[in-house]
């Protein structure tokens, strides 16, 4: 065993990841961040202190055993690293790219107290991409349990839940309304951040676990949640339909041609591949000067997609300052590098049209930050007399989403005030055997949070079905007895309550 590493002996600088040149990449859809080479990964893995405290594991919504997989990398045992990650996370290539690591694992990294934290996300991506390239898949021996599980929505929450239920021996069918599985990973996150072939590769892994994806299926309308339980023979159901009903501001001019939601822009561009129009049939209005309202991750995607679609000028309009912007730091940084113009402390008040009802400009007002509001962020207030016009021919709203109404319209599920599905602490809904998680419960959040919810629900569903936790991870005596991984109490693990379906 090598000498114990200390903060002084590890490589001091965080290993940079090669990126496409900003000027060049702003005009193509190829991935911005090129990933670590083996040398990069080995060097960065050396930076992990293997500290006893392991704050990173607690910072991870799905509790990946981060020090252990990094240790495997330093041993050049990449398959071993992959096995450790895929114990708790089936989609390392996705999460390594899109997780907000700075506020999760990397945000609490011990090394980060003194130096830049270990680049956990990049290492995770390295392992995931290596697994895809080498065709590794951890397909455990699965003993059929005889239970059938239906999952509504093939996005991150549904995929994570499906994986756990399949590993527990359930026959899993995932229903998806679109013609391809993936949910927000496919329609929302653009290729330059998360290439579609990476998603397809990860989905293929789920298929190898025996999971069936049934696309073109609008649950609620084609059949109801109740029918899944009563007629279709599902012993448990998970709802992970996402939020995805886009918000607009209600300012004058929103129905002008050239005003659209970020969801529409991104879906046309990513899922429907409108950027290849007319070789594909879905069109997209070309914007020459595009204004995107909002500063979350979706807004960053909309901005950068607009640039790549050929806009001359792309501006971000946000009513608070850069400090409050909800997007990942890295995304804002990338957008700045690529030449996006940021108008912080600016709020639109009216969209102006021409005689053809097309957008020609947007009236905005400057804001200043007042006292903190309920969210703890300082409330923006308009500065009197500061109105001004921005010339634009396309306005994209990326100011958040609301709950999708379809399941509320069609199932007798208990909903909260804003239309989100109400659940108990174990993500059980008001219908027995039906669980829900992700954005449709919490409102818009991140991919990894949705995956965490999918896994938490899976744990509860296994308990509901009387299935023993088949992942075979038993907490040793010296570990925190509260369920480090699966939300199932230690004493429940290995407790076999067999209920015949």
């Amino acid at each position, binding site marked *: 065993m090598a000498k114990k590493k200390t903060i002084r002996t590890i490589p001091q600088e965080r290993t940079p990841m090669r990126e496409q040149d900003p000027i060049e990449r702003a005009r193509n859809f190829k991935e911005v961040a090129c990933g670590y080479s083996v040398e990069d990964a080995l060097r960065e893995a050396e930076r992990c202190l293997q500290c006893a405290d392991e704050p990173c594991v607690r910072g991870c919504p799905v509790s990946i055993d981060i020090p252990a997989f990094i240790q495997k990398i330093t041993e050049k045992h990449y398959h071993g690293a992959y096995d450790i990650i895929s114990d708790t996370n089936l989609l390392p290539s996705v999460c390594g790219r899109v997780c907000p690591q700075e506020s999760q694992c990397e945000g609490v990294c011990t090394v980060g107290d003194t130096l830049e934290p270990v680049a956990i996300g990049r290492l995770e991506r390295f392992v995931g991409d290596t697994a895809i390239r080498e065709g590794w898949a951890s397909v455990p021996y699965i003993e059929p349990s005889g239970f059938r599980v239906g999952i509504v929505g093939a996005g991150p929450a549904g995929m994570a839940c499906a994986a756990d239920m399949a590993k527990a021996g359930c026959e899993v069918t995932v229903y998806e309304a*679109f013609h391809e599985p993936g949910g927000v990973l496919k329609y929302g996150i653009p290729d330059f951040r998360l290439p579609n072939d990476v998603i397809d590769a990860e989905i293929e892994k789920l298929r190898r676990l025996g999971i069936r994806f049934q696309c*073109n299926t*609008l649950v609620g*309308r*084609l059949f109801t949640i109740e029918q899944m339980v009563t007629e279709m023979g599902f012993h448990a159901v998970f709802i992970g339909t996402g939020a995805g009903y886009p918000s607009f501001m209600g300012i004058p001019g*929103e*129905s002008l041609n050239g005003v659209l939601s970020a969801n*529409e822009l991104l*879906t046309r561009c990513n899922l429907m591949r409108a950027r290849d129009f007319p070789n594909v049939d879905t069109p997209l209005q070309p914007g020459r000067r595009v204004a995107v309202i909002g500063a979350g991750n979706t807004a960053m995607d909309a901005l950068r997609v607009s640039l790549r679609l050929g806009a001359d000028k792309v501006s971000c309009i946000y009513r608070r300052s850069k400090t409050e912007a909800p997007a990942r730091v890295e995304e804002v940084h990338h957008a700045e590098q690529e030449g996006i113009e940021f108008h912080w402390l600016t709020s639109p008040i009216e969209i102006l049209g021409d005689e053809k009802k097309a957008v020609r400009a947007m009236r905005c007002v400057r804001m200043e930050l007042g006292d903190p509001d309920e969210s703890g962020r300082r409330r923006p207030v308009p500065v009197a007399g500061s109105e001004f016009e921005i010339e634009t021919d396309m306005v994209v709203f990326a100011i958040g989403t609301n709950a999708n*109404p379809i399941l509320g319209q069609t199932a007798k599920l208990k909903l909260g005030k804003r239309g989100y599905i109400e659940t108990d602490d174990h993500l059980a809904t008001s219908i027995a055997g039906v669980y829900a998680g992700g954005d449709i419960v919490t409102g818009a959040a991140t991919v990894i949070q949705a995956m965490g919810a999918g896994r938490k629900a899976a744990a509860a569903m296994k308990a509901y079905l009387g299935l023993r936790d088949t992942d075979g991870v038993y907490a040793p005596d010296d570990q925190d007895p509260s369920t480090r991984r699966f939300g199932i109490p230690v004493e429940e693990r290995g407790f076999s309550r067999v209920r015949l379906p």
Partner: protein
Amino acid sequence: MDSTGSQGFEIVARQDFSDVTFLLEVRHPMLARAARAGQFVIVMEHESGERIPLTIADFDRDAGTITLVIQAVGKTTREMQANCRAGTELYAVVGPMGIPSHIGGKKKVLCVGGGLGVAPIYPQARAWKESGAYVIGVVGFRNRDLVFWEDKFRACCDELIVCTDDGSAGIKGLVTEGIKQAIAKHPDIEEAVAIGPPIMMKGCAEATRPHKIRTMVSLNPVMVDGTGMCGGCRVKIGETVKFACVDGPDFDGHLVDFDDLMSRLTRYRDAEREALERWTESCRIRKDEEPAMATSYLADTPSTDA
């Protein structure tokens, strides 16, 4: 099933009503069972196709099929007209989407369909008839040659007024003329349903407004997913903004801002024109290159993958 998890949807029959209007009967037993009057589906003809909303014109629960009536006006619909035959498959069919029409509790109802709205008004007329209402149908066509489904309408309507622009069948004039006649004869009409191009629905709403007859219209704005996700289909209803795909597609015609709807329908007009021209050109070239292409290629063939 291909690698993306999509599977085809078999076309079991096709019927042409005119050089632009055609009917497809698609096998989808689950959808046929779930469909109700007023709902729509989203269809993709092929993998790089566009997602287009089409109102469900009919459904046969015993045969497990749904019927779509399509007007070949743009690239996608013309391509469907050229390619979709019995035995071929559609890449994607998803639905039923939208809130079903509220049918029942009225004694006398006027069902108006014009142009591409004639087909989707049929399940409404039939459902009203089944609910026990006295149904007066008004259907409009350009001329006698384009009239279709007259027998189907006669079977479910207590009275049917056929209108043609040139008077070659039924009465001469637009459907609004038929509405006037119907209201004159039946002052006790309690509800009207109108489906067709926006300009026609606007005319219908104006025709019934003075008589204070509640008039439901079915809106057809541009949409992508049809599940409330893109917001492209937002329409102004009175003071509020609604998404036609999940809040509709039926709305009170007296509250709909039709001018806004019509202007929003032109959003992708340039792109649509470009796509159509390009496609027409490619068809012409293909035709020139393969003059010997026999029509048997187009003949209906039974599906081999039953």
